[in-house]
């Protein structure tokens, strides 16, 4: 069978299973727009895909179903048991057609007019509608369906049993269905204990394998070598497989939250929206169980205490409805879960008063603390900030229990809050129990493990070679391929004895978008290790992700690249900036900045990754040619651009220059003084109208102007950008679509045309790529998607400078003039319909060419004016 068809069958079978469950929920909660939206989207995707593949029978039934759902959504049709039954009937009909499609490889001939007429009749209002469904009641169809779903889960291998009622309904369908086999997607249920047991055995197996490998290493080649290698590979594969068995999407821990928030909103008279992102993020099921309650507690807290009532919100100049955002993602061997609300924030004064009242701290001690430090008191046992105990939270289960639960699994919890703007809690959970590959390094005769996941490369450094460690205002840096890499020294961080350290190694690591180097004395082999959480006594000790027992039986500490990244380039400003800042800035992604002065006393900041070198040039070597300055630099003439127009070029002495490079082009920016390298999050506060500045930001506690490098590059070479994009020769495309089917269809089309393609399953995921600093030459997006749909994505893209100029093409199965108009308004350059499989490559190529050309023309126009 056609691969595409195979994939379509698998995806649609899954969608139908979800539809069944969702419809049951919808019956119980007809007012819940989220469920209806989800149902509508699923049905819509089925219809769209059918149309695309040329499956007219399936398409028309799905279309009729979508039609009714649309009327529900627009409030044109009341939600009646009769209407829901009809949709369920349409789903059964689709399922029957799918079974035949799976068996025969093509849509069977037949006629669906009876079913469609019945559905359309209801949509047109010819069938007498029954009284609207009461919200609390369930009714027979739902019960029957629930029972069937329950049975299907109980006995998954058995084909769905036919029931008399259903058989009667099916009899109306003219095509006689063969055995209703649940098509491709298959799974079985396994007792958790079996998996646990397996996991324990695998861990032991891995350790034993490691011991054997260790022994083999110290031996000469012998007959054990080859079988041992084979054993090693099989063990790794086995370990991968079993680890995956234990994983479950975090959405499983979330599925009760929408209802809890909804009920709470009704009870308290608030308007609250719960946004959940990254529900598919997988984590160990044991951890999942342990974070379920803390998560629920925190979401309740946000809804109950955080979000204000509509009147208070309006008075505070905020939208009437509050938003709670749950966000989960994997990063560097950890799972991060962020719970944020846009409510009133924590009341620092009340926490301060309460801390004194409860004897947790003295007034003088509190006076010396920053706000963020005071906030941490809510994690102390017996502390609850709710003045009024409501029925939902404040039942004596406080944040201290939350913290205890999370720390029990080796996690950490960070909290930041801003009065009037809301509260954000970031939970970091290590992949405990999981086995990871780690590099073993040594510093000051002590060994440490660094997770391989974070390691980019190893660089040997020596004072005598080109690769040597330099310092900028006491911060160590390494020049690596024309980039400055901030470094951390394990000796310094961990307070180890200073060593001779002439020839050392730098482990280049990456956390999120941040790259940094770890200075170590020696590097050993990589080893598979079982990450064990540290004892509770050591949880407060920084820089460790856990500990482990190596193959030779020795115990070593596992370094936490995240913590190390936070320390890179920040070491000497840490004290000055204060612990409060460090705590709050950790919540958002950090980057390294180079701070300098030029012209006035204001600090200027530039992202360190853009700077390739910092040079102190002999002022006498600068040549002045026709009002421009150049210098001989590495056998080439390098143009120098002064940061400000009135720059006084010195005749002698030293001139500090920041060098920017791209391939073989270089340009120097003349500044007065390089001040420091700091690490902080990038939050531009104001946009600037001054050319050369993007705006200002507070970096490491000081106000600084953020420099627009592009402006100065443009001054040096008018053709800098065209040159770099043409030379690079790589065109990057982003495809955003929630349907794996369409993604796998569009990706090869683009790849065939030499595009380098990245995919995202929804708008939120796409925006995360933007946060990661990724850039694309074109973005192609679906419209109907969960979490963040295409229209919202387009608005978000157009509202931000980073992707603002990227051509954006909609590829959607929604295709009437109203949809096209909405798409253009949201910021799409073009709007294509997913209707024509054969014509798609051409249409897409044409649209991309046109959009690129239009953007290019606009850019030229802007530059010329």
């Amino acid at each position, binding site marked *: 069978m056609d691969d595409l068809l195979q994939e379509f069958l698998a995806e649609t079978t899954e969608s139908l299973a979800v539809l069944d469950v969702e419809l049951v929920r919808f019956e119980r909660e007809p007012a819940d727009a989220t469920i209806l939206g989800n149902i509508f989207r699923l049905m819509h995707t089925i219809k769209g895909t059918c149309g695309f593949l040329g499956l007219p029978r399936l398409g028309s039934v799905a279309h009729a179903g979508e039609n009714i759902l649309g009327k529900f959504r627009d409030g044109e049709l009341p939600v009646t048991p009769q209407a829901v039954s009809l949709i369920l009937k349409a789903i059964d009909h689709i399922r029957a057609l799918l079974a035949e499609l799976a068996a025969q490889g093509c849509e069977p001939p037949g006629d669906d007019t009876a079913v469609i007429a019945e559905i359309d009749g209801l949509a047109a209002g010819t069938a007498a509608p029954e009284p609207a469904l009461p919200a609390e009641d369930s009714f027979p169809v739902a019960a029957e369906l629930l029972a069937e779903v329950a049975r299907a889960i109980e006995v998954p291998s058995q084909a769905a049993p036919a029931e008399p009622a259903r058989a009667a309904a099916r009899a109306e369908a003219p095509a006689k269905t063969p055995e209703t086999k649940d098509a491709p997607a298959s799974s079985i249920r396994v007792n958790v204990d079996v998996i646990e047991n397996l996991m324990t055995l695998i861990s032991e197996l891995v*350790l034993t394998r490691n011991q054997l490998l260790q022994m083999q290493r110290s031996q000469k080649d012998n007959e054990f070598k080859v079988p041992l290698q084979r054993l090693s590979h099989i063990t790794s594969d086995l370990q991968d497989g079993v680890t995956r068995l234990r994983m479950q999407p975090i959405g499983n821990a979330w599925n009760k939250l929408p209802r809890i928030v909804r009920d709470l909103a009704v009870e308290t008279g608030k308007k609250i929206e719960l946004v959940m992102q990254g529900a598919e993020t997988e984590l160990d099921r044991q951890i999942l169980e342990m974070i379920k309650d803390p998560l629920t507690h925190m979401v309740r807290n946000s809804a109950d205490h955080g979000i204000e009532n509509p009147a208070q919100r309006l008075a505070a100049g905020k939208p009437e409805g509050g938003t709670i955002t749950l966000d989960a993602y994997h990063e560097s061997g950890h799972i991060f879960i962020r719970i944020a609300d846009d409510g009133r924030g924590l009341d620092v004064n009340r926490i301060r008063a309460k801390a004194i009242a409860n004897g947790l701290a003295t007034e003088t001690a509190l006076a010396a603390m920053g706000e963020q430090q005071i906030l941490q008191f809510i994690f102390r046992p017996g502390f609850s900030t709710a003045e009024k105990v409501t029925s939902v939270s404040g039942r004596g289960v406080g944040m201290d229990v939350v913290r205890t639960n999370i720390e029990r699994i080796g996690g950490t919890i960070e909290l930041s809050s801003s009065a009037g703007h809301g509260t954000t809690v970031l939970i970091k959970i290590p992949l405990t129990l999981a086995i990871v590959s780690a590099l073993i390094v040594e510093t000051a005769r*002590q060994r440490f493990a660094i997770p391989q996941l974070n390691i980019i490369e190893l660089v040997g450094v020596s004072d005598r070679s080109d690769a040597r460690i330099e310092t900028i205002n006491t911060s160590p840096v390494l020049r690596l391929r024309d980039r400055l890499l901030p470094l951390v020294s394990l000796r310094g*961080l*961990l*307070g*180890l004895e200073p060593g001779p350290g002439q020839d050392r190694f730098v482990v280049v690591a990456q956390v999120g978008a941040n790259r940094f180097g770890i200075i170590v004395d020696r590097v050993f082999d990589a080893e598979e290790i079982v990450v*064990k959480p540290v*004892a*509770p*006594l*050591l*949880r*407060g*000790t*920084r*820089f*460790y992700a856990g*500990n*482990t*027992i190596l193959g030779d*039986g*020795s*115990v*070593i*500490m596992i370094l936490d690249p995240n913590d190390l990244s936070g320390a890179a380039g920040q070491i000497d400003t840490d004290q000055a900036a204060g612990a409060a800042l460090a705590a709050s800035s950790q919540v958002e992604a950090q980057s390294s900045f180079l701070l300098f002065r030029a012209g006035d006393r204001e600090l200027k900041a530039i992202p360190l990754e853009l700077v390739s070198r910092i040079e102190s040039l002999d002022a006498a070597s600068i040549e002045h040619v026709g009002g421009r300055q150049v210098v001989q630099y590495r056998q080439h003439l390098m143009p120098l651009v002064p940061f400000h127009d009135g720059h006084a070029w010195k005749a002698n002495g030293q001139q500090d220059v920041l060098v920017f490079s791209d391939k073989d082009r270089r340009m120097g920016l003349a500044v007065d003084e390089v001040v420091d390298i700091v690490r902080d999050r990038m939050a531009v506060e104001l946009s600037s109208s001054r050319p050369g500045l993007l705006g200002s930001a507070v970096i490491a506690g000081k106000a600084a102007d953020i420099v627009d490098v592009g402006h100065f590059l443009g001054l040096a070479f008018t053709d800098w950008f065209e040159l770099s994009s043409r030379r690079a020769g790589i065109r990057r495309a982003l495809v955003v679509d929630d349907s794996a089917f369409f993604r796998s269809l569009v990706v090869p089309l683009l790849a065939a045309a030499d595009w380098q393609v990245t995919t995202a399953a929804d708008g939120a995921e796409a925006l995360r790529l933007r946060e990661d600093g990724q850039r694309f030459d074109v973005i192609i997006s679906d419209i109907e998607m969960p979490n963040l749909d295409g229209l919202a994505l387009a608005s978000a893209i157009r509202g931000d400078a980073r992707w603002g100029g990227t051509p954006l093409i909609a590829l959607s199965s929604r295709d009437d003039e109203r949809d096209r108009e909405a798409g253009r308004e949201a910021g799409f350059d073009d709007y294509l319909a997913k209707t024509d499989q054969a014509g798609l490559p051409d249409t897409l190529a044409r649209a991309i060419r046109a959009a690129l050309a239009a953007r290019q023309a606009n850019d030229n126009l802007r530059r010329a004016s």
Partner: protein
Amino acid sequence: MMPHSHEPELRDSETQAFVTFTVAGQLFGVPVVRVQDILTPDVIAPVPGGPAEVRGLINLRGRIVTVIDLRTRLSLPRRDAGEGGMCVTVESGTESYTLFVDAVGDVVKLRHAQREGNPATLDAVWRDVADAVYRTHKGLLVALHIDRLLAIQPRN
């Protein structure tokens, strides 16, 4: 959390068994029921940056156990690695810790009649970790309160 603070009142004739050990010449004891293991450590892996009282970690039959340096905990000068020492492993909640001591002695049964409260002149740190003092034929034995002994503040 602290099962020992609510022990049933013992009559004078009843006895409790203690594992005894010495630290800087002083005799100490912990209840036998809380002791899991006594061993001479092979290698103790240090934890740089950890609390001063944590001497390091050992591999106890596949488990990682934190070694508490009893000298440091009792504000006494620390012994160097070459000077020997033994480990008394105790459980606290679900975790195990091992106490690094100078030498381990016998298991002794002490009658409740031998028990006395902490002398008022005892050093504040000692008073905090001592449960009681027993008179024995080898001199005074300080019975340690394990949970209080392990309540070590993380170093920030």
